[in-house]
């Protein structure tokens, strides 16, 4: 007796097997339907995001709705190009031969999304999976329940139910899903759960993409340039920390590295900017999300419990447990062995670490595991080159924060503990495809030396052939080379 979950998956497999997701017209129709879903339900989406995370419509548009619309539109315009086989060069030796690489769907894919960008992180991978011709089971996070419900109810109204399914539920559903065989699993979340996903995938030899996290640092070296650049730097840091879901984002700035002598300038600029963007204090806090739930709230509050950490607070620190709000908080040089400096913060607390010389930031970053992003505010070209060649991260963004997420031509993914695999733009299509090699040969001419019985002549022939020494081959065949 199959459970309803297993029946759903069997249906997805049947649909895939029968070629239901193969045609470009089907894929395009699904993508257009997704666009319609977003366009026709914008208000409901804003409402759900406000309910789950306290996001304002502008933040929701900027980080979720707008990103998805852009992604679908871009994919629709490029799909025919991506689906086309790519020619590969063939050496003369194999003439006449044709070689190409053709992308093919993997089959039935499982997408796990996270609670902090419940639409983007669910639907952006979905766009990739559909464009590549797969059937999909989407498992949104139950920690953003209004968004999850919305997806469960609304997707079936717009997309092909036999090919795209959404399953509600918590960790137990996730575990059961992981026991089954998939052709690909795409996971966004924490490294801890990432390990469990990969271990489960290993049992079925299922390839995985893991979009994890880490402590994404911002190196600040532009405060002593011009006042306007310093201001823009501060705005981009504030925007990169508290802008995305009040710091609950894998690519949010986790901590800042700055030279000792510039720390106070930076802090003053940050304070001014925070007040202008979000209000004077916790009572008048606006334009900012809240913490997703009590568990995360408690975790963040606990980071500040350590008296040495609490002492380092230079701005903010107030919390409102009822509203699940923590005001933007800046810390100056908390102890490096404290939890706040060893765990990914994922919240509105910003440690500023001071260094004697900004170049020390490279060693500092390398003492921690590879982050998803390194942000570097600097105009020093030599320093930029050093950062690029001496650190390792998923991405490096110079002189800004967050915007690399909007670039469809840049692969988005981690390295080391921040994950592996990538997506966005064509990379989404590729991540859900198998690149199949194809070689076409003709029956003529035949190369006799391929076949036994082996002789010295054949050995010499093949040696020359493998070196593509066509001239040598001619000499051999004309009898001018001795074996």
């Amino acid at each position, binding site marked *: 007796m199959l459970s309803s979950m297993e029946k759903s998956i069997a249906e997805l497999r049947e649909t895939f097997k029968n070629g239901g997701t193969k045609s470009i017209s089907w894929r395009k129709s699904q993508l257009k339907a997704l666009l319609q879903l977003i366009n026709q339900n914008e208000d409901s989406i804003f409402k759900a995001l406000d309910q789950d995370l306290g996001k*304002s419509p*502008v933040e929701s548009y*900027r980080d979720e709705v*707008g990103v998805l619309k*852009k992604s679908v539109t871009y994919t629709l315009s490029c799909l025919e190009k991506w689906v086309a086989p790519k020619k*590969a060069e063939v050496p003369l030796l*194999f003439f006449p031969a044709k*070689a190409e690489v053709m992308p093919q769907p*993997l089959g039935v894919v499982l997408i796990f999304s996270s609670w902090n960008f419940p639409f983007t992180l669910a639907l952006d991978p979905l766009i990739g999976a559909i464009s590549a011709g797969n059937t999909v089971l989407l498992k949104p996070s139950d920690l953003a329940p209004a968004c999850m419900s919305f997806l469960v109810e609304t997707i079936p109204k717009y997309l092909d139910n036999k090919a795209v399914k959404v399953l509600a539920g918590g960790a137990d559903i996730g575990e059961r899903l992981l026991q089954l065989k998939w052709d690909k699993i795409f996971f966004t979340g924490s490294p801890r759960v*990432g*390990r469990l996903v*990969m*271990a489960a995938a*290993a*049992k079925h*030899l299922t*390839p995985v993409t893991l979009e994890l996290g880490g402590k994404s640092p911002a190196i600040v070296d*532009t405060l002593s340039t011009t006042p*306007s*650049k310093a201001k823009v730097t501060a705005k981009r840091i504030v*925007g990169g920390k508290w*802008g995305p879901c009040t710091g609950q984002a894998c690519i949010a700035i986790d901590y800042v590295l700055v030279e000792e002598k510039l720390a106070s300038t930076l802090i003053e600029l940050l304070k001014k900017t925070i007040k202008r*963007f979000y209000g004077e204090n916790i009572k008048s806090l*606006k*334009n*900012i999300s809240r913490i997703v739930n009590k568990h995360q709230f408690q975790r963040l509050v606990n980071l500040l419990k350590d008296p040495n950490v609490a002492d380092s607070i230079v701005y903010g620190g107030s919390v409102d447990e009822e509203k699940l709000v923590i005001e933007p908080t800046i810390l100056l040089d908390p102890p490096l062995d404290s939890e706040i400096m060893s765990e990914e913060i994922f919240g509105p607390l910003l440690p500023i670490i001071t260094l004697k010389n900004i170049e020390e930031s490279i060693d500092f970053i390398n003492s921690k595991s590879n982050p998803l992003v390194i942000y570097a505010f600097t105009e020093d070209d030599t320093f930029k080159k050093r950062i*690029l060649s001496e650190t*390792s991260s*998923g*991405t*490096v*963004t*110079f002189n800004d924060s967050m*915007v*690399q997420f*909007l*670039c*469809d*031509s*840049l*692969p988005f993914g981690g*390295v*080391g503990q921040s994950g*592996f*695999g990538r997506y966005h733009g064509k990379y989404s299509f590729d991540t859900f495809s198998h*690149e*199949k*090699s*194809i*070689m076409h*040969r003709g*029956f*003529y001419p035949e190369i006799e030396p*391929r076949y*036994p*019985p*082996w002789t010295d002549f054949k*050995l010499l022939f*093949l040696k020359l052939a*493998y070196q593509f020494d066509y001239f040598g081959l001619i000499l051999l065949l004309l009898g001018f080379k001795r074996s």
Partner: protein
Amino acid sequence: MASEVEKKAVFDIDSAKEVVQELRASFVAGKTKDYEWRRTQLKAMLKMMDENEPQIVAALRDDLSKPELESSIYEIAMLKNSCKLALKKMKHWVMPEKAKTSLATFPSSAEIVSEPLGVVLVISAWNYPLLLSLDPVIGAIAAGNAIVLKPSEISPATASLLAKLVANYMDSSCIKVVEGAVPETTALLEQKWDKIMYTGNGRIGRIVMAAAAKHLTPVVLELGGKCPVIVDSGINLQVATRRIIAGKWGCNNGQACISPDYIITTKDYAVELVDSFKCELERFYGKNPLESKDLSRVVNSNHFARLLKLLDEDKVSSKIVYGGERDKSNLKIAPTILLDVPQDSLIMNEEIFGPLLPIITIDKVEDSFDLINSGTKPLAAYMFTNNKKLKEKFVEKVSAGGLVINDTTVHLAEPTLPFGGVGDSGMGAYHGKFSFDTFSHKKAVLYRSFAGDAPLRYPPYTNGKLRLLKALLGGSILGIIRALMGWSKA
């Protein structure tokens, strides 16, 4: 100079830890990132092969009774080509790739930079013990990594030779060979690597991936499967037969991941096909193939027993139409063809990896696609036909790592094609630039300037900003102008 660790009597978890620590120190010190270092190592590998060809051929003969030609061409020559290609192309491969930027991030410039992953583990197989060990190592070196190579203990002469040669020719502080069997491999798998590449079977592939999961280590698994050959009528049967023979018995006597495993042909064509095989097999290997020097032997008694089990199964042994002779003391089984074995026989349910070739017959050639797709996805699939429509259907319907039409196995020699599996035949790919890419992290880099800081990104959030954002993300200049002019709705 081989370090203390490899000379220790037992290679245990502590030894493995030490090896990784040493390699990580070398990597962090920047030794392997250095472009000249990479070139030197690749040149040293070339020299290593040039100066030791007879020893390599001898080791392969010891381990597999591999004919000299197969060793010279399919192992040494292919490896040298791979090395030369890397030396020639590396300067292009290491260059950053420019990436386009859109209006949403204007003004900006972007690129994708290749960087080494760090310390990588290459676990290779016994059937092409030189090629499958060093070909991945070439990619790992070109990409700038430090490497541990664990060759297979089932080809011990080659493993020892590799250990000796690599220690003598290459930089031991960055490239090490660890010999051993299950305990040593387990010790290595406990460590944290930045990438693991494994060539072998699905059972061990699962173990490797599960071990990698503990450290979130990405993996490339080059596994196997039952590579089918569809034979249509109306072709040059002699050429087709010879090419199948070359891909089957000519490749380590069928013990190759991309060897034709079984044939599918129509009931009408089967007899002609079998006759063609009989004729060409005798031409290649003589009347007594057990005595032919041009065939590898079965690697060891375990595999010999395994193959006999497949052959001697009741409902299978009666289907032999050619061959079937065996010589236990020399671990030889003659090229054997079987016709219409039952679908539920052992031989049709596991990868044969040996000199037995079942032919399955069907009514129409088109039926073969469903038959293939009912099994797990193989590493390669082959089809001999002159029918254009059938070719198109084959390419479209059959999912496999790679496909070849009108030949077998040659795609392996094509460095512009990614070589790897899908589904049960594996994940990831290599060869040529794909090797370089598989051992690299492609880091995205975005350069922004301070000019053009749009206030609409920042709070306070207003309807006007929402309108503008919509237009900007929508990417249309007209939309932006309209939004700026206040002509569009929020």
